[in-house]
């Protein structure tokens, strides 16, 4: 017995020692962004650990495909670390900074946007600037889609590469609703006639907060104030119309606002359960995919509000202490290529709209984009209508904390 224990402990320590030795000192010099060939060369043989939300098998499959392409083209292998919440990736980087690990970090790339980006940028947790020096960035539609360089009004400053476009769109069951509401006010009126048949995920869930921002953007007297930090305006006055609206909406919500779905994906299950008649999502292709996936009845269709809906861009960023920065840069560049973006917009693959400018990309690629069949329940980019800009992140924080005070504790 004693001998066994001794041997086992020795073995344990040995393994620990070996792993200690092998994981120390792997510092990778920051890639020289002025010399793309050198970046590509440096990337060869690296492994990129990409921390990305993993709740959607279609998206995981796309990421796996992109990894395979980059492996074949540049010798970079990609491993997706599937997350339930992007905050876990941010946590990881913060804990490494706390432990003094300024290089050789665990996270090489994060799928990110909005508040998470703003927070990482503010706390100097990102590598860069590197985005504008990548070859494929020239195809990005920075003028037509200004959110590709302004993430929730925060300038990206070359710290994150645009990956996909998202715009709030609603869906409804044509078997249960004749004409869907066309604005926040119409939604309220409709809900008053059909109490309990609509709800939004509980803020600060991303989708729930987005719904509140949509309402705010529609009702605010002067939309321009939302583009600046909240402390530069009379916030109480700006937000007043939102609270007046919610005061009328809350009592007719599903469960009278005593319970909420946890996230946007839960709205789909509630449609199938006939708990609600209309819901919303940030991915226009989600509805078609969900029908194909048996999650929604085939009578569900998408619609947007007449005055427009919130739109934003999602990005990939590289932490300041990433181990494989060159590999991550090369991967990000590939993700922005017309080839990768085309596949991403294909609703049978994923159905996420491109960040590229159709007038800038080569003609053959443009033709391929035009030829895409978007699916029965998906609105085309033209049908998506007006894009409302995301408010400054400080508005979201304000709305979330005020919402928590008013409605976070059920009366």
């Amino acid at each position, binding site marked *: *017995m004693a001998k066994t224990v001794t041997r086992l402990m020795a073995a344990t320590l040995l393994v620990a020692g070996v792993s200690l030795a092998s*994981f120390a000192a792997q510092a990778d010099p920051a890639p020289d962004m002025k010399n793309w060939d050198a970046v590509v060369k440096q990337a060869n043989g690296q492994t990129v650990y990409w921390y990305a939300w993993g709740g959607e098998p279609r998206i995981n499959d796309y990421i796996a495909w992109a990894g395979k392409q980059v492996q074949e083209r540049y010798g970079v292998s990609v491993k997706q670390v*599937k997350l*339930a919440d992007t905050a876990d990736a941010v946590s990881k980087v913060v*804990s490494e900074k706390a432990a003094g690990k300024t290089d050789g970090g665990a996270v090489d790339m994060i799928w990110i946007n909005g508040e998470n980006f703003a927070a990482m940028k503010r706390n100097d947790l990102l590598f860069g600037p590197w985005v504008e020096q990548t070859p494929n960035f020239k195809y990005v539609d920075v003028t037509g889609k200004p959110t590709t360089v302004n993430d929730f009004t925060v300038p990206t400053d070359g710290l994150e590469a645009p990956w996909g476009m998202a715009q709030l769109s609603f869906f409804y069951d044509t078997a249960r609703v004749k004409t869907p509401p066309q604005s926040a006010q119409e939604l309220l009126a409709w809900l008053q006639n059909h109490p309990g048949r609509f709800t939004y995920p509980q803020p600060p869930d991303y989708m729930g907060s987005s719904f509140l921002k949509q309402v705010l953007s529609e009702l605010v007297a002067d939309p321009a104030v939302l583009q600046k930090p909240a402390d530069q305006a009379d916030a109480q006055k700006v937000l007043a119309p939102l609270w007046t609206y919610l005061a009328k909406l809350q009592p007719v919500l599903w469960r009278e606002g005593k319970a909420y779905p946890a996230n946007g994906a839960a709205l789909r299950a509630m449609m199938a359960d006939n708990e609600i008649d209309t819901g919303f999502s940030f991915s226009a292709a989600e509805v078609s995919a969900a029908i194909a996936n048996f999650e929604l009845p085939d009578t569900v269709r998408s619609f947007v509000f007449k005055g427009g809906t919130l739109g934003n861009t999602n990005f990939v960023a590289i932490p300041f202490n990433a181990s494989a920065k060159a590999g991550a840069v090369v991967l990000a560049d590939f993700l922005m290529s017309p080839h990768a973006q085309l596949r991403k917009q294909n609703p049978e693959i994923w159905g996420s709209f491109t960040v590229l400018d159709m007038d800038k990309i080569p003609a053959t690629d443009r033709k391929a984009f035009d030829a895409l069949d978007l699916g029965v329940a998906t609105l085309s980019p033209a049908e998506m209508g007006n894009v409302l800009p995301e408010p400054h992140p400080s508005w979201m924080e304000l709305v979330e904390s005020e919402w928590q005070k008013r409605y976070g504790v*059920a009366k």
Partner: protein
Amino acid sequence: MLRFAPVLTVILMVGPVLAGLLGTLLPAFGYLPALGGGEWSLSAWRELAAQPGLEISLRLSAVSGLLATLISFAVVMLFCAAWQGTRVFGAIQRVLSPILSIPHAAAAFGLAFLIAPSGWIVRLVAPLAGWQQPPDIVTLQDGWGLALVAGLVIKEIPFLFLMTLGALQQANAGQSQQVALSLGYGRVAGWLKTVLPRIYPQIRLPLFAVLAYSASVVDVAMILGPTTPSPLAVRILHWLSDPDLSMRFMASAASLLQLMLVAGLIALWMAGEKIAGFCGLYWAEGGGRYRRDGAVRLTVAVVSILAAGLILAGIAALAVWSIAGFWRYPDLLPGQFTVKLWLRELPALAGALINSVLIGGAAIMIGIILVIACLEREARQSARPGRGVMWLIYLPLLMPQISFMFGLQVFFGYLGLERSFISVVLAHLVFVLPYMFLSLADPYRSLDDRYRHTGLCLGAGPDRVFWQVVLPLLARPVLAALAVGFAVSIGQYLPTLLIGAGRFATITTDAVALAAGNDRRMIGIYGLLQALLPFAGFAVAMLVPAIVFRQRRGMRDGL
């Protein structure tokens, strides 16, 4: 060498836990230079106190923790009292044990689909009641947290039951019961008066573990618990994952509050023990026979079967969902079935399954060696370790896991041990070992010393006595401890993801990530797969002794 075992065990356990605690303590008082916090302050606490509904969150955590513990305890005790030594007892035992292998979150999802206003139970009556739409009432996520309590109770009953079985075996409960019966006591009263006082000390720690777990649970609470506001542990998780990184200071303060809450609840429970003991003494001495306990016996059997039935029906629901085509309310079954999703997921699963088995296997191997070495040393020295040391081992069970994950990450980072296989195993060990100790300690300590003495008298050395006498006699509880440890390891999400830095995808990390997509089909597939490995573990733990000892009557299951 054996004498170092307790020290090593405590170091392996307490090092990480204290590091984790420190990682919470410092930010709670304003210190976290990585986020620009360099000065001591109480602002995190002030901010916490100003959170709307904080007192309601605290109350929810406290009440659901106490209620879940009390109910599962009462059910298990009354059930043992009413049915021990009968065929029903054996039958329930066989049903409840495998339920242990079902992950909490999967059981909660199953229960949610049963009791939701659009769930299976409503669908049964909907055609009769003419409900075209599901009733707009709150059943899940009710403000009192009753659904949450129900979800906890159905999972804790099997755990406490298994722990009680071990205690019963060594307390010679069967004999006491027969004496009580022959003195004219009713089954239930006789058991409660003669057996309960003797087995209670042995199930006390498992009870505390249940109490701490129920008061700080996150996943079950997110599925079944109220959200306006949520119990404290869920809110801590939200604060920790808030994009506004400065919220982490307040989240750390809240984690300490959560720890204090758990400590307070345990203190409260101990006070309750005193009162119950005092009253119980009078009651026992009163000599009441309570012979007509048929109603009680029937009720408790029905409740136990209901609890097991709810879990099994929930799992059946998950199984149906995993092969469901489109399935709309109020259909009892999906309109079409498909194995498309299974076929899509299975090929990718091999790696995750292997990782789960390797990590769990390594953790329980190290764990069982340490646990047995500690207990064997204790037996040879005929001395029990001080209470303080015992408590240190159980610390990870009494603290909410989320509250020390950050410190744990920093700790492993300092050691340079992050994202290696061994670090993941060590992190798992922190949570696996207490449960293994919990399930093996009592059987080990109650092994009749005369076996050992006989061996020594026949001239065998202590080591030979251990290998040839002690270990075979304890094969059953050792295997059970391995199975319990394996199940705990399989269920670990945060330690695997954060300490392993995503290098080790397991069935559980994949399951939790995919659950974020909220598709019941995927939840069904992964919930079943997650239950599969621990189930295999429990099956091995039950089958191996049955086969090995098939020729030895005295080694068969005694109960």
